[in-house]
């Protein structure tokens, strides 16, 4: 019914492979180990599940569908956001799709700050579902089923890091009528879509000011925002590990971000994601104005 799946993880691996027929998804599971030449550094191997999921039971010619790469990690392990922060590496995917199917970019939910001594990384504790849109040409043959394949590479870390690879696949019939949804998968996809950072409303005013060794990101949403965390999209601009100082303003919030020691040139844009109160996430692309002066002090309360 399904094609063969393979799993690799470098030199040492044991792979167990199964396909979940109900969700029409195939899971690739692997146990990872680390080479034996560092006896004092034996690693307790994490069990990482990578699955390719969809909420639709069939694809429709001429319509897009969402697919998702689901990473399930043991407690305490994490994978990384598109900017991993001070260490780590984001998952990557290489799609292998039949003619007429085209994959769009992975969609990244707002990450968490993962703090360790002197370092802050950005990622997802215990797992994440990374969605991607797939465009289906109207010329795709209606008679056949199609197989979507993805070569996934990722780095899973807790105190230590273990790289992994998974080849996952999904077999779907081509349908001309409206698509039937798998209710469980649909609920999961809906929840995940709701967590994706949204474009900022046009009425918001967003700007950043470069002041000495800091950027002050000002976001005017129209109401005072009590909490806000910024996640930078581009590495090397801000000091990830430095505490962010969020100061509510009457119309929004100011977030003071310490510049990175590695930042040698002015930047024109500060790009990233802001999350208010741990739930509402927005995409930020703030023009940066240079300010020679120290600027106003931003005190909360």
């Amino acid at each position, binding site marked *: 019914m399904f094609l063969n799946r393979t799993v690799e993880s470098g030199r040492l691996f044991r792979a167990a492979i199964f396909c979940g027929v109900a969700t029409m998804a195939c899971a690739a599971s692997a146990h990872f180990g*680390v*080479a034996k*030449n*560092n006896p*004092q*550094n034996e*690693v307790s191997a994490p069990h990482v599940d990578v699955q390719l999921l969809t909420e639709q039971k069939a694809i429709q010619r001429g319509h897009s569908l969402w697919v998702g790469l689901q990473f399930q990690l043991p407690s305490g392990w994490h994978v990384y956001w598109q900017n991993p922060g*001070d*260490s*780590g*590496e984001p998952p990557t995917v290489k799609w292998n799709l039949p003619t007429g199917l085209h994959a769009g970019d992975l969609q990244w939910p707002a990450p968490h700050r993962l703090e*360790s*001594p*002197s*370092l802050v*990384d950005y990622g997802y504790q215990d797992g994440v579902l990374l969605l991607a849109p797939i465009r289906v040409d109207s010329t795709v043959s209606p008679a056949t089923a199609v197989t979507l394949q993805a070569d996934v*590479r990722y*780095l899973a*870390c807790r*105190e*230590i*890091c*273990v*790289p992994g690879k998974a080849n996952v696949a999904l077999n779907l019939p081509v349908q001309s009528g409206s698509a039937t949804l798998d209710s469980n998968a649909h609920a999961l996809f809906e929840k995940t879509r709701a967590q994706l950072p949204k474009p900022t409303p046009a009425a918001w005013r967003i700007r950043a000011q470069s002041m000495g060794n800091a950027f002050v990101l000002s976001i005017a949403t129209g109401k005072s925002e009590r909490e806000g965390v910024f996640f930078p999209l581009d*590495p*090397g601009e801000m000091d990830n590990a430095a505490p962010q100082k969020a100061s509510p303003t009457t119309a929004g919030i100011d977030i003071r971000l310490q510049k990175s*020691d*590695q930042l*040698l040139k002015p930047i024109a844009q500060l790009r990233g994601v802001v999350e208010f109160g741990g739930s509402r996430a927005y995409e930020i692309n703030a023009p940066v104005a240079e300010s020679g002066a120290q600027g106003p002090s931003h005190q909360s309360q």
Partner: protein
Amino acid sequence: MNARRLSLVAGLTTAAIMLTAALALFAARAGEAAPDFTATDSTGKTQHLADYRGKYVVLEWHNNGCPYTRKHYESGNMENLQREWTARGVVWFTVISSAQGEQGYMTAEQENQYMQQMHAAPTAALLDPSGDLGHLYSAKTTPDMFIINPEGVLIYEGAIDNRATPDASDIPGATNYVSQALTEAMAGRPVSVPVSQPYGCGVKYAH
């Protein structure tokens, strides 16, 4: 006159001490004086950065359990770089800032055995379980690379190369920033990439 000169010298010495302290606070930055340090190597010898004025010095942050470090060691890439550049007069310090009990922590004996097994060829391996040297340079990852020129100025900090993966198959064809910076600096040219984002595992500092 003499007394005045003495007091001037005393003043300069105080200023120098304060400068060192200030550098320690603001960490190492490409284009600025590299913070001085003393550290104990795996043979028990005390290594003092200032003793190597007049030579290029490479600092390589290391954790032998980290997949990114292993990429460069198990492929032989790091050992080859150590051999190539020490043969050209460069002082190469491997630095281990893993705290005791953390991944990559090595006793002197373990590190000597490891270097022998891997045919590693740094000038010395500095044991920094307190993390003091790591924090002084704000070393973030393993590997994280720093280059100090003969005048004591930091001329490079960041990744070992431009392929931020743990796969050894990515080494051929990668731009090695350390070799590039050393080659350019030794030829009297400006370093084209003086800073890059380091990649790898976080340094396993003491909690």
